[in-house]
């Protein structure tokens, strides 16, 4: 794995963090939850409301809901709410950046990111069974956030997913988020696998 690239002391990483921080100062999106499905039997209304609140205030839509160009500029496409990088948006290899403090590239949808770690595509968080979180259990979700590994066991979860902050959420808050995510409209969208650095770079023009 390439986590060596992510050493907290890495100057590359520090520069990357600064750039990403700037890029993400765009206004956060808010969810339109009018269409969400009925709550699971075990979830309470208060828990779902807490989950919706956390999802909408913790920036989940910023990366997991694809963005489109609207009249006022980029805005989240809520018809694809929380469905991750669109499978029909096939990204060309990320451009090679010259040496220097600019080290990351972000797709127009805000769902594809390329940097020293490789290329990452944001996940489908909707409850679609084949392409989203439909098969996940609460334990899978909680452990993924706590450990930074896919389902708590597999590959590393990559930048810019801020799991190092979210892992400090309480069990109750993570359960509320998961319960809410299981109620949003399921969208079938097969997000591509992430790419290592060796497979992501095209020659610069």
């Amino acid at each position, binding site marked *: 794995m390439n986590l060596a690239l992510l050493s907290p002391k890495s100057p590359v990483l520090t520069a990357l963090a600064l750039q990403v921080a700037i890029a993400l100062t765009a206004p956060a999106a808010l969810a339109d939850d009018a269409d969400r499905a009925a709550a699971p039997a075990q979830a309470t209304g208060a828990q779902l409301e807490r989950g919706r609140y956390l999802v909408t205030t913790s920036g989940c839509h910023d990366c997991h809901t694809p963005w489109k160009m609207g009249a006022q500029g980029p805005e989240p496409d809520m018809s694809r709410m929380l469905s991750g990088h669109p499978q029909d948006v096939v990204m060309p290899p990320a451009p090679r950046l010259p040496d220097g403090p600019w080290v990351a590239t972000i797709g127009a949808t805000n769902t594809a990111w390329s940097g020293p770690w*490789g290329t990452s595509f944001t996940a489908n968080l909707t409850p679609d069974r084949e392409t989203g979180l439909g098969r996940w259990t609460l334990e899978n979700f909680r452990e993924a956030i706590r450990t930074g590994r896919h389902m708590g066991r597999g590959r590393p979860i990559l930048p810019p997913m801020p799991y190092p902050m979210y892992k400090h959420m309480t069990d109750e808050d993570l359960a509320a988020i998961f319960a809410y995510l299981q109620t949003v409209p399921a969208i079938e969208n097969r997000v591509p696998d992430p790419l290592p650095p060796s497979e992501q770079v095209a020659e610069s023009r």
Partner: protein
Amino acid sequence: MDPQRCDPPPRPPRRHASVAAIALAALVAAATADTGEPSAPWPERLQDTGLYDADGRIAPGLLEYSPQYPLWTDGAVKRRWISLPAGSVIDASDPDAWQFPTGTRAWKQFSSGRPLETRVIERGADGRWRFAAYVWNEAGTEALLAPEAGVTLTGVPGMPGGRYRVPSRADCVACHEAGPATLLGFSTLQLSSDRDPLAPHATPAPAGSLLPDLAARGWLSGLPAGLVAVPPRIEGRTPEERAALGWLHGNCGHCHNARGPLASLGLVLARPSAGARPERPLPVGLMLARLRSTNPFTRMPPAGVQVADHEAIALVERGLAGSRHVTEEKHP
């Protein structure tokens, strides 16, 4: 490294936490992770963990063992030992989830021309398991506690690119706590006296380490009598299918089983001691693609492997070819 380090108590996020601040901290801290480290610190030196006697020999009372289907770790040579507190026994009434007594310790030494690393696992008084890794000096005279976050050794002969990865303690948890048994490789099936002659990379079983030996020395409580009378083995249509299923059991089954947190995936590669064949067809094409992948983000297993075990993968392809194991796969 501070073995007693603990994270601050969890708190809800600030209501209007800046996304920029979140992303910044995420990137800076992406390489860190919780480890669930218990309070008692590990000794700094391997020799103080009980593996050796005062003369530097393996301590008396330890049992060396060798699972019949070993885990592939880039071809590193491994030796393993276990110790149980005097007078204690293993509850083997669930033959696929042995319950080890408090104080159980096991060691696994990895070598490539010289000792590289020795890992230790121990069951504490609170019932939880804890993990540590010790890194050997080049002279092979001493091993010291590895950092909690793990470390990558370079210039190691025989390892891919000279690189050898000592896992973090979070890495240990990811594989060892994904099924009904935390101590892997010391189990009914792995220690069966009906050893699989086609098992890839297996080493001969050390004397006195197989199931009948353990039963005879009184280490096992409640093991179903039938499993002693008739040694457990994986049922396969052919010897190669048996070995292929065995390799998958030893290399994948600790996560891909029906009793752990990934049961939701519906991919069961752990084999029960009773010897039943898989209840449902296995997605062989998908499995082979993952096993062969050179993409470290999609390769399986997700840890401990830099170079795929091509010998075993060829065995899996031959052993599971055709018949009932191939299913329709939507996603390669």
